[in-house]
């Protein structure tokens, strides 16, 4: 009944196919979150975003996040897929599909997956602007997080969590 499906891919995301993973006769709820490239960031017009990922560690982190959600709110079907490469405005960068017996866990788990991904997954964004410039965006430092978990100091700084 519980299942976890995670992937980092350079292929276009098929949101309907991924939502199908959430189906189970014992599940009354299915939620779908799609993260999509938008055309504006910090006042600058965005044409495209390039996503970079460290795939083996990223898929492992995705699996861990899903296992945590399962422990908190299971049984669940959890699907978490992120795309890499250059994406135009309107294209999906991440799809999260959750199946659960009732709606409460579905919403909670879906929210948990995206919020944890944003601070833990080794993924980076480079924006391509209308004026031809590009910029790698700042983000959440991983070493502070990892070493907090191990109760050791690494000297890294933590970005404030805000998007």
């Amino acid at each position, binding site marked *: 009944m519980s299942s976890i499906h995670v992937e980092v891919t350079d292929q276009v995301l098929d949101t309907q196919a991924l939502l199908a993973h959430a189906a189970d006769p014992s599940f009354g709820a299915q939620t779908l979150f799609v993260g999509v490239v938008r055309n504006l960031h910090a006042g600058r017009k965005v044409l495209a975003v390039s996503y970079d*990922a460290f795939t083996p560690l990223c898929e492992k982190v995705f699996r861990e996040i899903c296992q945590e959600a399962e422990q908190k709110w299971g049984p669940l079907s959890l699907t978490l897929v*992120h795309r890499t490469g250059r994406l135009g405005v309107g294209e999906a960068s991440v799809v999260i599909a959750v199946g659960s017996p009732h709606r409460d866990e579905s919403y909670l788990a879906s929210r948990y997956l995206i919020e944890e991904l*944003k601070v833990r997954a080794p993924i980076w964004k480079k924006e391509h602007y209308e004026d031809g410039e590009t910029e790698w965006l700042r983000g959440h430092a991983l070493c502070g997080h990892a070493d907090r978990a191990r109760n050791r100091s690494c000297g890294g700084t933590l970005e404030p969590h805000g998007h």
Partner: protein
Amino acid sequence: MSHKVQVRLFGAFRKLGNGRELEIAVPANATVKDLRAALRNVITTELNRPAEAPLVDESAIASDQSILAEDEVIPSGARLAILPPVCGG
């Protein structure tokens, strides 16, 4: 006796070298902390990109399976990655 460590580049570090990896020489029994110092040095002096060096101290050093602690000794022939602050989703 020193050995070479391959460090795969991600995010803003892809502006450096060939954009894929750097080969960094470290002494035998070098730790992750030593590798950071070697990376800052290579970025500043060999690659002549001192503006990118501070990012090394905001970044994690990782294997395929985990982020490494600062006091971990790097095995000879290790293939690691440097992970700047993340912003996926």
